[in-house]
């Protein structure tokens, strides 16, 4: 029926053209005197007016996006929300083709149903006549909306197996990893991002607390909106946090680029490192622990970079970061794309959704006290979990940062060269130390035959307990996925974030991601 109507649409236009065009010819009868000039002008003016009307209508019909006002108001078009047939909006599916969002007919009409409910709520978003669109539903609206397609596109799809226009839009998500991440976060406040470092594909992106996108009502929406835990916020993209010690790989990359080596040794005294011109020392968590429990702590002593990374020695990186200077640190942060508003959609898509908030970096001219704190991911440095997952992915991918992407069919973007491959491999080695070293903070991620490289963080903040972080990638010799886990006010990264990362990695192993073979 669709095909018949599309064909008939063209037939009607053709008949109209056949009727109108012969009548358009209107010559003066032979032998008549030429029309007075004044009268000839009228036809010209009317034709000109019609031409202007048609030109302007062509603009609105074919390319209204050139108007910034239209772009701002495009979501107000109620046609978007009025699904009149199950074919009016494409379904969403994961990388294996498992449906994620489908259209179902209910008594309220045709509505979108999220198969995995609150487990993939933030990334997929909702598409609701009253509450609008968020997430992928909003960012990919043009791709998803098939209600209006040209007749020739409909006719062209005739006879093809699986109508390409109504087939689901495939995302890069891996549902098993995503569900594992969402379940591991259950009850916490935090976010998990899992990327494929070699392609930039987003395998999982979870934020907690979550919500059920299918049961939105006015009352429940108001409750969600006013909830102090902000369940509607996609923390993986829109939450800015101090990265804490997970920022040390960035600092290490800057140090290695400036000629420092993994063997560079610095003495870290028990009272911590006090930047010049500052009264407050930067101390290590062991010192705070000792002060809290009343034990004595003799300090780390003389450390090289491997041990400092493994034990997350603040004094080491603060001192060297200060020696490095604000400009070089800032440059390294910028190279990792910390200050970029990463979009999960391809370049050139005009969308405000699925856009990571740009992180912040210290000013190159900041005081040594600020620079030293920035070197350990405190103070001026603020990032989203996606940014930190990209840091891990860049290290894993030998210094080449693949921009994140969510659409399976989207063309791969150009990689960004963050650092040279030898430096990246050295940083990767340092991160591996944090897992293998007996005193390593990430030793909770030892997973038997699968080598994992990681870095934990416990980011201090003035709102409460430190944010627990862990970033990393696996397998460390041939990375297949990179991850970042954040637990808001979770305390120590090794205690709160590492178990979540482990659950995610276990799910990935079950899915065949970490095996020696290819992509599952």
């Amino acid at each position, binding site marked *: *029926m669709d095909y*018949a*109507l*599309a064909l*008939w*649409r*063209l*037939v*009607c*236009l053709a*008949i*109209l053209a056949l*009727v*109108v*065009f*012969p*009548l358009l*010819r*209107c*010559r*003066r*009868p*032979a*032998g*008549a*005197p030429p*029309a*007075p*000039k*004044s*009268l000839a*002008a*009228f*036809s010209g*003016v*009317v*034709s000109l*007016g*019609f031409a*202007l*009307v*048609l030109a*302007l*209508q062509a603009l*609105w*019909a*074919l390319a*209204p996006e050139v*108007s910034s*006002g*239209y772009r701002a*108001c495009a979501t107000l*078009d109620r*046609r978007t929300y*009025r699904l*009149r*047939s199950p074919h009016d909006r494409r379904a969403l599916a994961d990388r294996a083709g498992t449906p994620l969002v489908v259209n179902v007919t209910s008594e309220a009409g045709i509505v979108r149903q999220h198969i995995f409910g609150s487990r993939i709520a933030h990334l997929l978003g909702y598409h609701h006549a009253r509450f609008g669109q968020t997430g992928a539903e909003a960012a990919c609206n043009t791709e998803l909306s098939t209600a*209006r397609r*040209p*007749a020739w596109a409909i006719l062209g799809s005739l006879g093809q197996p699986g109508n390409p226009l109504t087939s689901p839009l495939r995302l890069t998500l891996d549902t098993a990893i995503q569900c594992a991440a969402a379940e591991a976060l259950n009850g916490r406040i935090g976010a998990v991002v899992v990327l494929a470092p070699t392609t930039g594909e987003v395998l999982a992106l979870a934020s907690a607390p979550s919500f059920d996108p299918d049961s939105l009502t006015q009352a429940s929406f108001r409750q969600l909106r006013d909830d102090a835990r902000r369940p509607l916020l996609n923390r993986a993209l829109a939450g800015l946090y101090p990265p804490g010690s997970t920022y040390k790989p960035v600092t290490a990359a800057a140090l290695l680029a400036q000629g420092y080596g993994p063997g560079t040794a610095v003495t870290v005294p028990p009272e911590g490192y006090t930047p010049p011109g500052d009264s407050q020392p930067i101390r290590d968590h062991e010192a705070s622990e000792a002060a809290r429990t009343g034990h004595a702590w003799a300090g780390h002593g003389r450390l090289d970079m491997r041990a400092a990374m493994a034990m997350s020695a603040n004094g080491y990186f603060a001192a060297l970061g200060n020696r490095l200077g604000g400009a070089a640190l800032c440059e390294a942060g910028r190279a990792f794309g910390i200050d970029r508003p990463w979009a999960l959609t391809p370049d050139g898509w005009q969308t405000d959704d699925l856009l990571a908030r740009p992180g912040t970096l210290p000013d190159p001219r900041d005081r040594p006290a600020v620079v030293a704190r920035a070197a350990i991911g405190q103070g001026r440095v603020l990032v989203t979990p996606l940014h930190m997952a990209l840091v891990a992915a860049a290290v894993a991918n030998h210094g080449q940062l693949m921009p994140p992407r969510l659409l399976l069919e989207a063309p791969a973007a150009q990689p960004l060269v963050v650092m040279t491959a030898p430096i990246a491999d050295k940083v990767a080695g340092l991160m591996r130390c944090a897992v293998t070293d007996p005193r390593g903070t990430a030793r909770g991620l030892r997973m038997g035959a699968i080598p994992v490289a990681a870095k934990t963080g416990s980011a201090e903040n003035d709102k409460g307990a430190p944010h627990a972080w862990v970033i990393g990638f696996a397998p460390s010799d041939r990375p297949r996925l990179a991850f970042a886990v954040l637990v808001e006010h979770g305390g120590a990264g090794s205690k709160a974030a590492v178990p979540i990362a482990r659950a995610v990695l276990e799910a990935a192993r079950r899915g065949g991601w970490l095996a020696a073979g290819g992509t599952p």
Partner: protein
Amino acid sequence: MSRPADRRHEGRWLRQVGWCLAAFYVALAGHRWLRGGVAFDPREVAVLGGFIGGLHLLHEALAATRLRGDQAVVPLVGLLTGLGLLMRLRLATPETAWNWHEWLIIPAALAALAGSVWACRRHLTTVEAAGWLAGFLALGLLLFVVRHGVSFRGATFGPGRTTPTELLKPLMVICLAGFLKRPRALWELTIFGALFSAVLLLLVKQSDLGMVVILGALTLSLWFVSTGQSRWLLVGLSGAAVVLLLLSMGGSSLLGSAAQRPQRRVDAWLDPWQDPHGNGYQTMQAVFAQRAGGLDGAGLGGGQAQLVPLVRSDFAWAELAEDLGLMGCALVLCAYLALYRRGYRIASLAEHPFRQRLAVGCVTVLAIQTLLNLGGVVRLVPITGITLPFISHGGSSLLVSYCLIGLLLAVGDDLEFAETSARPGRRDGAALATPADSELGAGAGFDSACGAIGAPGAPRRPAGGRRRGASGAPHGRAD
């Protein structure tokens, strides 16, 4: 021969229009069937069939009374009106009650066309003499509306939600066409000036700005026709530009509260996105409808143009844009253009200055209306609240448009339009050249005839200068 042969083309084109409308109705039925509704409603078939039948009846009547002149006008008007009817049928929902007397407007409009042709074709000199009467009738009508009118949505309506001010269009056309001949005595000018300003003032008082614009453009174009001086057009255009510029710069404070409504419309025209839920809502929805239509449209009945406010009347074009798309709209624009070009051709062939002015006036009113309405929908000009001729839902407007077309046909009555000779390509096509076809063109197109007139040039492209010199009384030739 019982049936006059010289309106054959009209009959043929009317049949084509009928098939075209039927094809569109099938599309509408298909879309409704797809959505689970009743595909073919016999009442709708009756309305459409009745309209097409009425057109053929009109054609037979015109042919029987041996009306000559342009044969494409009635088919074009029929096509546009038929599309308007389809749009109205398409917007009807199961809830809206079927209102039979609403459709009485169709026979009434056809009768108005036939009636005005019948009344005026032999009596155009009387019409010319009635110029003054028409002017005072217009003034009286306006006074009546001001006194007894009902205000609704910013416009003033007569009893029964009719718009008697629509009648101003033919009345003022006749009045201006009759008056604007030179020389005129000073007292005549004075009285006419007073009459005209009174009409304009009353219209401004009712804030019927669309009509003010139409009357202004009509006056200027008739003035232009009668004097041949193009500066009057420039004066009119620059005046409109100054008013628009004043309003776009927020000049309503200078003009007081009377300018608030136009000010809001200018604001919505310049930036509808500023106030998407209020002032700019309608314009924005019209843009969405055009966007939804795209290049080939959703098919008649496939769109959702009911989301646009006032889509039945002022914004009918938004519905066409969504259902027929850009291509369909271009074709409908071509139909309008063909109609108006033929109208101006009638005017330019009419040798009598009054007839010329009358025809120009009729066509210009319709053309200005079309341009202002379409311009408002596509954001070329601010919304003026003027209906789209023939397509918009609006009884008074449709009746008056048909009257104007009737006047136009009456002016064209004694003119010969050899439809075949106007298309030399058609005669070459052997398949279509029936013997009857060439019979009409014989007077003007054939070589022998050309030779007889005295222009021994190339038969199909007569040498302009010599022909002009040779044909002293071109129109008498065909008789």
